[in-house]
């Protein structure tokens, strides 16, 4: 038998024979959907990923880390990416 077919059958028969596994797979699918389709897309954007190049990201971080007042111990206000214009 084709090795790829063997591997496919190994997994498909294994999944079919699962007992506790069916509930687990439901939990896993719901979890992964929530994580990637909801949390990642809607709530957890990659902040620096919005910039176009590594050079712009480096400059944004320099601006953020070296601007006096930002991030200091007593700082109550900040404007990092929101105000940064490359």
């Amino acid at each position, binding site marked *: 038998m084709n090795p790829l077919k063997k591997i496919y059958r190994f997994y498909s028969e294994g999944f079919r024979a699962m007992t506790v596994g069916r509930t687990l797979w439901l939990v896993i699918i719901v979890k992964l959907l929530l994580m990637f389709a909801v949390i990642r897309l809607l709530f957890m954007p990659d*902040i620096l990923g919005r910039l176009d190049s590594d050079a712009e990201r480096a400059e944004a*971080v320099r601006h953020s880390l070296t601007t006096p007042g930002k991030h200091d111990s007593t700082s109550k206000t900040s404007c990092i990416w929101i105000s940064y214009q490359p």
Partner: protein
Amino acid sequence: MDLLSTVDWSRAQFALTAMYHWLFVPLTIGLSLIVAIMETIYYRTGDERWKGLTKFWMTLFGINFAIGVATGLILEFEFGTNWSNYSWFVGDIFGAPLAIEGIFAFFLEATFVAVMFFGWKKVSPGFHLAATWLTAFGVALSAWWILVANAWMQYPVGMEFDPDQMRNVMTDFSAVALSPVAVNKFFHAVFSTWTLAGVFVAGVSAWMLWRKRNVEASRLSLRIASWVGLAGIFLTLWTGDGSAVNVAKVQPMKLAAMEGLYDGKVGQELVGFGFVNTDKRPGDSLPAIKAEISIPYGLSVLANHDPHSFVPGINDLIEGVSLTPQGDTVNTVSYAERIRMGRTAREALAEYGQARQAGDDAAAAAALKTVRENYRYFGYGYFDNPEDAVPPVAMTFYSFRVMVVTGGYLLLLFIALVFISYRKTSLLERSWLHWLCIISIPLVWICSQAGWVLAEVGRQPWTIQDLLPVQAAVSAIPADNVVLTFCLFAVLFTMLLAAEISIMLRYISRKSKTDIMA
């Protein structure tokens, strides 16, 4: 926008996610070893009873693995969203171990876990056993890379800061991957998982003994769990001693906070019992610990293995007295000076960027020289006062004691269980023993979590020791957004935990009514 709120909520969110993640991970690592040992006994003896036992615990391993898998990915989302400065600043040093971990986790675990569960009748017994051991090896190896990344944050080595890229660049992979902090942290964490899994197996077995179900299976499981747990707790204590020595050398402020020690001395005692005076501040004359009962020379022995060694306190460190990596007392840079150097580096870094944009090479070179001279204390430039670099003393102090007290209890428990599990007396039929094992299940998780609270709260305010404090590492996103995702994660993880406990309990209850070893 209130940055402090964003920092605090981002920290709380990361702590919540990491703590929930660490509920699942140690059971996966530790239980994989116990399952591998049981299957090895089956392979060597051909005794079908051990096959039944292996399958029972392997299913519990599978439930935990399935529920817990990928929960760590949320932490990586948080790096990109809440800690974008940090994510960029650490560069490939943090990314490389995480990427390696991801690849190993996928290929090793996904392949061999499948053989473990689906391959009983499809592969030879030897191949199946190899798959089980490779799964155990793979999950531990995954932990290695995560702990390398964590250790680097506490002891940043093997890198150089590149002001053009605004990130740290790895210059010595082996220094990062094999730093003494990483090596010790790995073994301490992995051995602790053996302890945790030992308690889990002992607790479930004790429950079946209490219900008088599968008595022989429970006795055999209890015996394996006792040995694994005893080995685990001994080795955890041994590597814990190594952790204390490492912390004394590379994070002396964490050690001082762990003890609530403000003014150190030669032959420093260890606080055996006491309450932290939360009004105490560096430099004042208030007592640090109330109702203190001390162990003479204890901290000097713990930190330096020398009862007559000096251990610096918080005030000493702020004033510039510390230890060399060899453990000798040394006058070092005061925190006031570090703040000055950090600010100088920060200003020079801004000047470097401006000079590069203006094409002024001479000014850029001069600024770069200043950055390099002061970079080792770059992170102190974000502080207004030396006290800002002191971690939360009370939480560090208490988490250390919770870890040690519960760890000591578990050592006694496993010594007793090893002894009892070989006796055919009625001790194994005693309800109090069953319930002692059952209530030890939450205790071992508390012990494990307290260890991480100590490690992570004790290193505050740093995300990267001396280089980047939390307030500089955080993204300036609205605190409300972080509060929302905090609540979202709290609900998601609580649901996952409830699902895991529910599925496990139902499985244990159902299987316990049948002959597990059949």
